[in-house]
C-alpha cells in the first residue's frame, strides 16, 4: 500500500518543514512568477502538498505529477488541487524518459517513500542526461538499510550484490549502519550524478559544461528515517552569477558531507507562542532566556532551527 494511506502528509512536521525549506530555496533561485519556462515534476501522492506550495508560492503552472497506482485514478483526479497539474501514470523509470525535457528548465522532486533501490539511479540517469541547465534535482528516500540486517549484523555482501555497478566494491558493514547510511547514500548518488555529467560534458566547451551544485542534504525521522539530497544543475559559465546569490549562506543549505538533521520539537501551542516572542535570536542568548527554561532545552534547540518553517496544526470542530 502506498504511504499516503498510512500517513497524512500534512501531519508529518519534519516533512512539512523540509517542504517549506525547499520552497524557500527555490524562491531564492528562481524568484516568484518569473519563470514561464520552468516546470515542476513531482510524486505528489493524493495530498499534492508539494504541488500546492509550488503553484501558490512560486506561481508555476507547468506541473506534472507521476503516480504509479493507476487503479486510484479517480481518487487522484478528484484530489488534484489545480487544473494545471497533469497526471502521468506509471513508474518513474517509465514516465521520466518520456517527458519532453527540451521545453525548459525543470524542478524534479523524486519523493520516494521506499528505501534506496537501484531503480532510483535510473531516474537519476534520466534527469542528468536530459535536464537543461538551471534545473533543480531533489531526491528523498528512506535511508535505512534495515533489510540488510540479519541477527544484528549488516550483510554488506548482499547489499553490494543488489547495488552492483552502483556502489563501491569496498563498502563495509559500518557504512550501512543508521549513523553512516546517509553518507553512503549521498556518496552513491553523487557518484552517479558525476558519471552522468562526465559523459554528457565530454564534447562540450568549458563554458557549456554542466556542473551540479549540492545544496540540500537533510535527514529527518517522522516515522521512518528519511534522507533528502539535491541541488542545482548549472552551466559553468553561470557559476559566477550563482555565487553572487550567496545561497550557501542560507542556514539550511548543506553543500558538503555534513547533513542537516531536521528535528521537530514536541511542544504545545502555548509554548510555541512563548518561544516566538524571543525569536529571532542568537542561539546562546535564546537558550539562556529564563522565562522559557521550563521548556526542555532539547526542544528549545530544535525549535530555534526550525521555527520559521514549523507547522501549526489546529483541530477544527464544527
Amino acid at each position, binding site marked *: *500500500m502506498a504511504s499516503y*494511506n*498510512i500517513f497524512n502528509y500534512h501531519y508529518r512536521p519534519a516533512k512539512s518543514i523540509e517542504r517549506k525549506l525547499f520552497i524557500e530555496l527555490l524562491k531564492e533561485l528562481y524568484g516568484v512568477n518569473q519563470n514561464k519556462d520552468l516546470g515542476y515534476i513531482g510524486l505528489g501522492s493524493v495530498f499534492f502538498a508539494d504541488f500546492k506550495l509550488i503553484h501558490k508560492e512560486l506561481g508555476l503552472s507547468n506541473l506534472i505529477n507521476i503516480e504509479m497506482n493507476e487503479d486510484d485514478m479517480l481518487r487522484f483526479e478528484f484530489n488534484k488541487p489545480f487544473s494545471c497539474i497533469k497526471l502521468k501514470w506509471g513508474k518513474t*523509470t*517509465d514516465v521520466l*524518459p*518520456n*517527458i*519532453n525535457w*527540451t521545453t525548459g528548465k525543470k524542478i524534479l522532486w523524486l519523493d520516494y517513500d521506499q528505501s534506496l533501490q537501484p531503480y532510483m539511479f*535510473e531516474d537519476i*540517469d*534520466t534527469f*542528468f*542526461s*536530459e535536464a537543461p541547465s538551471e534545473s533543480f534535482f531533489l531526491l528523498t528516500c528512506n535511508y535505512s538499510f534495515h533489510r540488510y540486517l540479519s541477527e544484528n549484523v549488516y550483510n554488506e555482501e548482499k547489499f553490494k550484490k543488489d547495488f*552492483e*555497478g*552502483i556502489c563501491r566494491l569496498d563498502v563495509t558493514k559500518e557504512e550501512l549502519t543508521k549513523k553512516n547510511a546517509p553518507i553512503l547514500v549521498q556518496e552513491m548518488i553523487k557518484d552517479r550524478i558525476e*558519471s*552522468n555529467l*562526465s*559523459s*554528457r*560534458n*565530454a*564534447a*562540450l566547451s568549458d563554458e557549456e559544461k554542466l556542473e551540479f551544485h549540492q545544496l540540500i542534504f537533510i535527514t529527518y525521522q517522522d516515522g521512518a528515517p528519511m534522507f533528502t539530497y539535491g541541488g542545482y544543475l548549472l552551466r559553468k559559465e553561470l557559476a559566477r552569477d550563482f555565487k553572487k546569490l550567496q545561497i550557501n549562506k542560507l542556514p539550511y543549505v548543506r553543500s558538503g558531507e555534513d547533513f542537516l538533521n531536521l528535528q521537530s520539537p514536541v511542544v504545545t501551542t502555548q509554548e510555541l507562542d512563548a518561544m516566538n516572542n524571543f525569536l529571532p535570536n542568537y542561539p546562546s542568548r535564546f537558550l539562556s532566556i529564563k522565562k522559557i527554561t521550563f521548556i526542555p532545552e532539547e526542544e528549545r534547540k530544535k525549535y530555534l532551527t526550525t521555527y520559521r518553517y514549523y507547522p501549526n496544526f489546529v483541530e477544527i470542530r464544527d
Partner: protein
Amino acid sequence: MSKDQNVIKANPTKSFFIDMLTRDIRLDRAIIDLADNCIDGAKNLKKSNQNYDGLEVDITLSKSQFRIWDNCGGFSLDVAKNYAFMFGRPNDPKAKFVDHSIGRFGVGMKRALFKMGKHFLIESRNAEDYFLIEINVDEWIKDEDDWMFSYLEHDDIPTEKRLLNGQDGTVITISDLYPTISDELCNREFQAKLSRELGLALSYSILKNLEIRINDQPINRTDISFLEKDGLKPLYIQKTISDVDVRIYAGVGSYSPSHAGWYVFCNDRMVLEADKSFTTGWKETKEDEGNIIKYHNDYAMFRGAIFFSAKDSSKLPMTTTKTGIDSDHPVFKSARPTMLTAMKQVINFLKKLEDKDEGESIINDSEKIEIMEIKDHVKNYSETFTFPTTKAQKEANKYVGISYKKDKAKVEKLKDFLGVSANGEVGSITFDYYCKMNEID
C-alpha cells in the same frame, strides 16, 4: 655530447604497414573501404546535387585479381600527392578532398591494397589530370627510406593499362594476390556476404541511385525500417555536438532478434549494425555499470538509429575500420546519454507488452518507413516516443512469488486450522495475517 647520441629512432617500417595494419580488418571490410573512396568521389562530384544518377561502381572478383572501377570523378594529382596516398592524414592537408567524406584516417585504401596482394595499378582521371601508379610491393619494400610511389601521366601511360575509356573515375587493380585472399574472392559465400555488407553499409548511396555491382550483379540496398501508424511513431531528436550534427531515431520494427538494436551511421555510412553491446547502452556483463538494459528477446522489436554527420570527417566518432564506434570519443560520449533515454522510452513500452502476439497486434496495419528515406526530409516526429496503450500490465509485473520450506507436520496442522487444502494457501493466508497484524496494507 652531440645531439644525435641521445636519440632513439622510432620511425615506422614499411613492413609494419604491410603486415600489421592489414591484420586489423576483415577482407570484406577492406573492400568496402575501397568502395567508400568511390562514394567520396561521388560526393565531391555531385556536391549539392542529391542524386547519383549515372554513377557506377563495378567490382570484379576473381582468382587472379581484384578490380574496382568507378566513374565517380577520380581524384586529382594534387589530392593524390598531398592526401590520398599519404599514410595517415596530414595535420594540415594542403589538398582538402571532400566535405562530409567517409574516409577519415588516410589508411583505408592503402590497407586494402596491402592486405590483398603484391601488385597494384591505380588509374585515375580527374578533369585535366590523368595518371597511373604502379606498385610492386616486393620492390617497394626494399628501400626503407624511400616511401615514394612513382606515377606516369597522360601519353606516357601504356595503352594496355588504360581502363578508364576517357571517363573521370578511378580503377584499382590488385594482382599477385595472397593465396588466402585469392581463395576467398572466388568463394560464393564470401561474395554473398560482401554483397549484403555493401548493400547495408552503402544503403544511403544506393538509395541516391549509385549503382554498385559485384561480378556484374547489381547490389540491392538493405535498410532498416521503423513501423508507424496513428498512435505509433518513432521519436526523433536532433542535436549539434562540437560541430557534429547528431540525429537520433528510436521506435519499433517487426519482431526480429537479429535486426533489433542500434544502427550507427557516420556521414551516412553504417558503422554499426543491430548493435546490442555495451557501447550502445546494453548490459553485457555483470560488471557493466551505468544507464543500461540487458538485451532480451522481449526487445526484439526495438530499433534505433543514430546519425553522426560532419563536414570534417575527422570529427566523427568512428574507428579506423569503420566497423564500430570509438566509445571514448567525446562526441559519442556526449550523445550516448540521449541515446539511452531514447532507448528507455521504447524499451519501457516493449516491456509492457504481454507477449509476441500483443506486439504483433500493435504493429498490425502499420506502415514501414525506411530510415534512410525519412532521414533527409524529417516528418513531424516528436522528441518523445508515441505508443499505443497496452493491455493491462502483466500480472507478473504486479505480483512476485515467494517460496519457502516449512516443517511438513506444522503446515498440515495449519491446513486443518485454516480450513484449506493447498500449501500455497497456507503461505498466502499467513502472509496476509502478518500484514494485517502489523497494519501494513
